[in-house]
């Protein structure tokens, strides 16, 4: 429905007299522009030029759309602004009113709007697809990084386990080649399982050795004042033990090495491991 048809419908609906109809007929929607030649702000209606009414020159600006009341003087119309049609005006409309306007615009200008919307949809789709693809690629990259870390850790563990197996096989071979003595190899008094003092020797800058290191894996913790070192056997331990020796990264930094020494050590029931007093 165009604006004139709407006016006629309203005239019939409200049963307007001639005066009121003239007034309604002269109420139109206009968009104003600037005349590049004379620098005047104007619009066009019914084949005539529409200038701003002197009382409204300060209110109506270039590029604005207004519901205006027109008065004809000579060959020109003069417009008084009644309501500016802008974003805030649209937002204040009721939902049904907005839908009516959108419906009217769509019906009247479908052929013009469709290509614009199609272009817009394509852009939005392109952007959305791009974002989703980037997100998916990012997630996959992150998963690949995590898997690489896991593979690295497993390879490290595999290498450690190979070292442990090799040392154990060496021990088995050595034991098999020895003749079986009549007496027990280790007396009960020399058992490394006894609670109390434990003999731990520092054999290198980052190396500790003890008969009590008879398991293959340990968790090792140091206090931040570098005074105590806790060595606790555990199947999932980070530190491997080969031939009763443990290599610890950074031990030389915590305690300077000045030749092989015995370290004051004890089995600690509280911690469930060997506690070594470094200082």
């Amino acid at each position: 429905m165009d604006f004139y048809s709407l006016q006629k419908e309203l005239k019939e609906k409200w049963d307007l007299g001639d005066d009121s109809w003239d007034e309604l007929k002269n109420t139109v929607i206009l968009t104003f522009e600037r005349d590049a030649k004379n620098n005047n702000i104007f619009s066009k209606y019914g084949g005539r030029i529409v200038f701003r009414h002197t009382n409204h020159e300060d209110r109506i600006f270039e590029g604005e759309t207004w519901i205006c009341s027109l008065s004809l003087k000579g060959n020109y119309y003069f417009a008084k602004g009644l309501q500016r049609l802008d974003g805030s005006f649209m937002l204040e409309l009721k939902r049904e009113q907005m839908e009516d306007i959108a419906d009217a615009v769509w019906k009247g200008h479908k052929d013009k709007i469709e290509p614009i919307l199609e272009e817009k949809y394509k852009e939005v789709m392109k952007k959305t697809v791009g974002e989703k693809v980037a997100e998916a690629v990012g997630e996959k990259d992150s998963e690949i990084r995590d898997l690489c870390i896991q593979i690295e850790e497993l390879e490290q563990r595999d290498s450690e386990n190979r070292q442990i197996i090799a040392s154990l096989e060496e021990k088995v071979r050595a034991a098999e080649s020895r003749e079986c003595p009549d007496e027990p190899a280790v007396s009960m008094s020399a058992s490394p399982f006894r609670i109390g003092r434990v003999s731990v020797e520092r054999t290198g800058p980052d190396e500790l050795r003890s008969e009590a290191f008879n398991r293959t894996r340990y968790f090792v913790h140091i206090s931040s004042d570098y005074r105590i070192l806790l060595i606790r056997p555990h199947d999932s331990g980070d530190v491997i033990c080969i031939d009763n020796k443990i290599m610890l990264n950074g031990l030389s930094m915590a305690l300077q090495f000045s030749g092989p020494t015995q370290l004051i050590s004890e089995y600690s029931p509280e911690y469930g491991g060997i506690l070594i007093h470094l200082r």
Partner: protein
Amino acid sequence: MDIRNVTKSVQINENKLFRLDFYALAVQLLEGRELVAAYIFDTRVPFGEDDRSKKFHDKLRYMGYRVVAREAYDPNREEQKEVDVAMACEMVVHALRDHYDVAIVVSGDRDFIPAIQQVQSAGKKVEVAAFANSVGSEMRKAGDNFHELEKMPLLSVFNPPEEVAADGSEEEGE
């Protein structure tokens, strides 16, 4: 545990060779007592942003911690907000509901003193654990017991990394 307070303190002592073991920290502070719950308080970036601490929080959760991460990190001032109040509230509320007998506050921040006093007045014991470089005398005295974290074996030690020869192959061990 106010995790930023702890990690900030241990950074001074800790280097790349050793790493703070949060699991060992909880186990050693327990000293054989029954654990009701271990809470860690931290901040995180708002949902949807790239959160670098997420993996760290997941690791802590895997260890058994309950991680309470507030969306209140101020990146400009590099400080966290709401965390101490959240931790204090949790401590006081659980004390008043009689959920525990002993609370162990792992932080040297003296902002916790009023909360500690409230918990004590509810009939509970409070122990404080912190590194010496992040705790003042008031906080040391606020609890019924003080744990000096720098004297506890809490930093994980590892094997030396395997040496790689110039041609890229791993060297044979002696």
